C-alpha cells in the first residue's frame, strides 16, 4: 500500500488525491487515519481535497443514548442505496475518559448496510472531545465528500441536551426523540431540539410514539422557520420499516430547498463553535502542561482558568514551590486565553512577580483575562492565587496574533 502511505512528497500527495477521488476504499480509509491521528501529512492532504468538497449532503444524526441512532442509520442508508446513491457513514463512539480506550460498536448495529459495496462506514472514537463529535470529523467529512459519496451520514455520540456541535457541520440535522422520555415541557426546552431540521420519533411502533409526535408538532407551531425551512416531525420504526422512505423523501426535499455543503459557508469548525472544548483540547495536547500537572478548569473567548496542585516535583532546593512552576501555570492560562479566538497567538513578552512562597500540597489557580486586543496584538493579565485567596503571583503577557487558524481553515485575508 505504498500509494496510500504517509509520505508527504508532492507526487505522493497527488497520487493519494487521485486514489481518493477515484473512490478507492483502502486509500480513503488510510487517509482518514492520517486526519484522525493528525499526522504531519494531514494538513496538506486536507488542503488538497477541500476544493473537491461541497457536493454531498451531510446528514447529522443525534439523540440521547439508546434512541436508536445506529438502527435508524442502517435503515436510512439502505433506503438511500436502493435509490442509487453512494453513502458514507461516520459513526462516533465515546472514548473512556480514564484509559482513552473505546469499543466501537455502532457499525455492528448497521448490519445490512455495512456489507453493501455502495456504503463506506468508518467508526471514530471521540477521544475526549465534548459536544458529540470527534475533533477531526469536519476534515474527514470533506475527504468523503471529495471521494464522491452522495450522502454523508454523521452519527454522534449519544447526546445530551446541549450537544449541538453537529448543527455546524450538517446540512440537515436529524434529532431522534424516542417516545416516553419526558412531558411536553421537555419539548420546548432550548438546546438539542432547536438544531433539528427533522425531528424523528424513533421506535414509532411503541404505544407512546403517537403522543411524542403530537407534543413535538405542538412545539413547532410556536417556532418560526429557519433559513426558509420549517422543521418537520416524522415517525419511524426501523423494525417495521414505517416512515423510512418518508424520511429519505424529506431529506431530498431539504437538499432541494436548502442545499448541500453548507458547512463551508458557515466557516467556523465545530470545535471553534465550542471554545470551552477547544481550549480543553489544547491543554490535553500540551505535553508541558501534562508533565507539570497543570489542569484546565474553565475558559472561553479571552479568558482561561488553570490549576496546579504543588507536588514534590515542583519544589526548589529550599523546599518551596519553584518560581518556574508558578510561571508555567500562569503562562499556560495566558496561552489558552490568547488562543481562544480561533487564530494562533504566540507569546512575545511576559512579566511575573512572586509575592508569596507556597509549598507542597497547595492548590494554585491562575485566572487569565484579556485587557486589550487589536487585530495583531493582545494583552492579558493573569492572577495566580492559593486556595485561601491570597495572591501568589501577578503576571502580564503580550501576544502576536498570527494569520493562521487553529481549525486549519483558510488564513485571514486569503482569497
Amino acid at each position, binding site marked *: *500500500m505504498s500509494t496510500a502511505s*504517509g509520505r508527504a512528497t508532492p507526487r505522493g500527495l497527488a497520487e493519494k488525491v487521485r486514489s481518493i477521488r477515484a473512490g478507492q476504499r483502502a486509500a*480513503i480509509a488510510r487517509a482518514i487515519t492520517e486526519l484522525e*491521528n493528525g*499526522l504531519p501529512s494531514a494538513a496538506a492532504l486536507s488542503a488538497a481535497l477541500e476544493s473537491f468538497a461541497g457536493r454531498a449532503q451531510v446528514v447529522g444524526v443525534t439523540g440521547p443514548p439508546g434512541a436508536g441512532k445506529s438502527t435508524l442509520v442502517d435503515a436510512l442508508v439502505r433506503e438511500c442505496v436502493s435509490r442509487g446513491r453512494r453513502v458514507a457513514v461516520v459513526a462516533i463512539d465515546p472514548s*473512556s475518559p480514564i484509559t482513552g480506550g*473505546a*469499543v466501537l460498536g455502532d457499525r455492528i448495529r448497521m448490519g445490512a448496510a455495512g456489507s453493501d459495496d455502495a456504503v463506506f462506514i468508518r*467508526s471514530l472514537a471521540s477521544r475526549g472531545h465534548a459536544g458529540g463529535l470527534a475533533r477531526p470529523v469536519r476534515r474527514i467529512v470533506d475527504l468523503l465528500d471529495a471521494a464522491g459519496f452522495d450522502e454523508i451520514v454523521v452519527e454522534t455520540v449519544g447526546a445530551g441536551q446541549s450537544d449541538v456541535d453537529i448543527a455546524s457541520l450538517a446540512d440537515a440535522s436529524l434529532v431522534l426523540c424516542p417516545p416516553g422520555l419526558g412531558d411536553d415541557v421537555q419539548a420546548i426546552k432550548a438546546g438539542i431540539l432547536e438544531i433539528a431540521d427533522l425531528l424523528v420519533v424513533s421506535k414509532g411502533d411503541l404505544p407512546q410514539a403517537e403522543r411524542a409526535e403530537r407534543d413535538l408538532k405542538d412545539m413547532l407551531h410556536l417556532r418560526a422557520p429557519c433559513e426558509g425551512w420549517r422543521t418537520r416531525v416524522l415517525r419511524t420504526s426501523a423494525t417495521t420499516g414505517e416512515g423510512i422512505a418518508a424520511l429519505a423523501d424529506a431529506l431530498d426535499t431539504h437538499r432541494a430547498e436548502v442545499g448541500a455543503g453548507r458547512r463551508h459557508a458557515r466557516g467556523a469548525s465545530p470545535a471553534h463553535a465550542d471554545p470551552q472544548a477547544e481550549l480543553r483540547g489544547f491543554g490535553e495536547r500540551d505535553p508541558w502542561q501534562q508533565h507539570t500537572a497543570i489542569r484546565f478548569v474553565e475558559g472561553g473567548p479571552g479568558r482561561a482558568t488553570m490549576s496546579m496542585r504543588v507536588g514534590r516535583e515542583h519544589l526548589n532546593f529550599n523546599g518551596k514551590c519553584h518560581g518556574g512552576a508558578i510561571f508555567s501555570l500562569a503562562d499556560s492560562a495566558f496561552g489558552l486565553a490568547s488562543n481562544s479566538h480561533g487564530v494562533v497567538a504566540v507569546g512575545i513578552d511576559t512579566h511575573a512577580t512572586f509575592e508569596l512562597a507556597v509549598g507542597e500540597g497547595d492548590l494554585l489557580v491562575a485566572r487569565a483575562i484579556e485587557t486589550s486586543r487589536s487585530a495583531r496584538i493582545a494583552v492579558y493579565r493573569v492572577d495566580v492565587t492559593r486556595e485561601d485567596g491570597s495572591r501568589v503571583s501577578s503576571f502580564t503577557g503580550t501576544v502576536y496574533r498570527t494569520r493562521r487558524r487553529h481549525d486549519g481553515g483558510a488564513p485571514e485575508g486569503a482569497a
Partner: protein
Amino acid sequence: MDTPPKILITKIGLDGHDRGSRIVAAHLRDVGMEVVYTPPWQEIPAVVKLAVEEDVDVIGVSSLATDHLIVPKLMAALREAGVGDVAVIVGGIVPDEDEKALIDAGVARVFHPGAPLGEISSYVAAAAARVRAARFPT
C-alpha cells in the same frame, strides 16, 4: 502524537462461543486501545471490508470450534484487498499441528487457553506499533 492502536476483534464461521472475544475486547479497551468488536458468525468478505474501511492495525480472530481452519482464507482475502500488512492473531482452541499451518499462512501469533490478558495486550500493542510504523513512515 501518541494515538491509540485500532484493533478488530471478530469471529468467523459458525462457532458462537463469544465469551473469549468479549473478554479480550474489553481488556484491550481497558488498556487504552480502540476496539471494533463484531458478534460471531461473520463472513470473510464482511471482515475484509471492515478491516479496510476501519484501517485497523491488528485483527484478532477468536475460534473455539475449528473455525481457525478458515483463517488462511481470510489471510488470502486480506492480501487481495491490499491490506496484507495488517497483523492477524488467533486466540482460542487451536491444536498444535494446526498452529504451524496458521503461522505458515501468515498469522502473526496464536494464543491458547490460559494465555494471560496482559501478555495478549502487550503483544497486540507491539504488533500495532510495527504495522503503524510501516504504514506511516516518518
